[in-house]
């Protein structure tokens, strides 16, 4: 996957950090201090479809030929997460209990084109 940073409008992972102190949540969330709510954005033109999902292989070559041949009917694909991981939280509930949980698939580690 590609991290956004340069001027390219192509599909990339945009980093975005939510500081719990900034939003006034540091009193009930004990750990961590914030949440990496990264997201995917950018273009996925036809020749990028399946990138970087597909490994370089015969299938890739055939797929590229099909895409090139059907360039006239070009349809973009989508820029989506390709790798995610849980967000581990330690927090107080309204009964002052301490709850630890891992919320699955909350942090985007990399993006790619469908």
């Amino acid at each position: 996957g590609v991290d956004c940073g340069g001027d390219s409008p192509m599909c990339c992972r945009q980093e975005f950090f939510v500081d719990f102190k900034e939003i006034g949540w540091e009193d009930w969330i004990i750990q961590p201090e914030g949440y990496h709510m990264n997201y995917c954005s950018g273009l996925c033109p036809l020749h990028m479809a399946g990138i970087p999902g597909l490994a370089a292989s015969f299938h890739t070559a055939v797929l590229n030929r099909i895409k090139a041949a059907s360039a006239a009917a070009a349809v973009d694909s989508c820029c989506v997460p390709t790798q995610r991981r849980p967000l581990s939280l330690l927090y107080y509930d309204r009964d002052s209990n301490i709850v630890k949980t891992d919320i699955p698939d909350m942090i985007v580690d990399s993006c790619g084109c469908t």
Partner: protein
Amino acid sequence: AAKSAWCPACGVAALTPGTQRDALLALAKQSILAKLRLPARPNIPHPPSRGALLTALRRMRAQRSDAAAFPGMLRDGPAPARSPAVGLQEYEILSFAESESSTSHSVHLHFRFSQEVAGNTEILRATLYLFWASPSPGAQPITVRLLQPDPAGPNMTVTSETRLEVQRSGWTTLDVGPAVRSLFGQEIPRLTVELEVPEDWGSPLPSHHSDSHWPFVVTQARARTPHRVHRR
């Protein structure tokens, strides 16, 4: 796409950086509360002391390594899911006791559980941690009773009674899985425990609520698998 006038992927006018950041912060709040099944951010009436919290977390970690070293040691409910079923969220809940003294040598402890977790999870395990500061040498008889509200009236009924022989100061654990499991179906899930110690012992509890030896319950729960309809 702050640099260009429009969003390259969706083709609509790009938001100003400030508006975009506010929108993302609102989305982050909404997403975390939804995943924790919370209608709003909780307000904490009286958080436990840091000392009690650190001691309890340390005991939890020690217990987990014991469980790994002696898998047969804790007997309770279905086998713990070390590798959770795909995508099923697990919870560990640490509940500190609220005390209500009844006589000079016995006390009632109340452990409350939030409806958000109680209503959507299944219990894997629940353990009560008690610290004994034994005042005199020799084995001291202790009675631990689990109580639940009597549906027929205001009194409490005893659901289980355990007699311990405390030899020296230190922590003991008690399996309260079945009692907590039966609670999680109730409207106000609250576990009540009665501790009774010998007359000359004095109070069975540390002198202050913020003491790092305050009683607590550790509950391990897993989100219920959503009801799935399989089309054949």
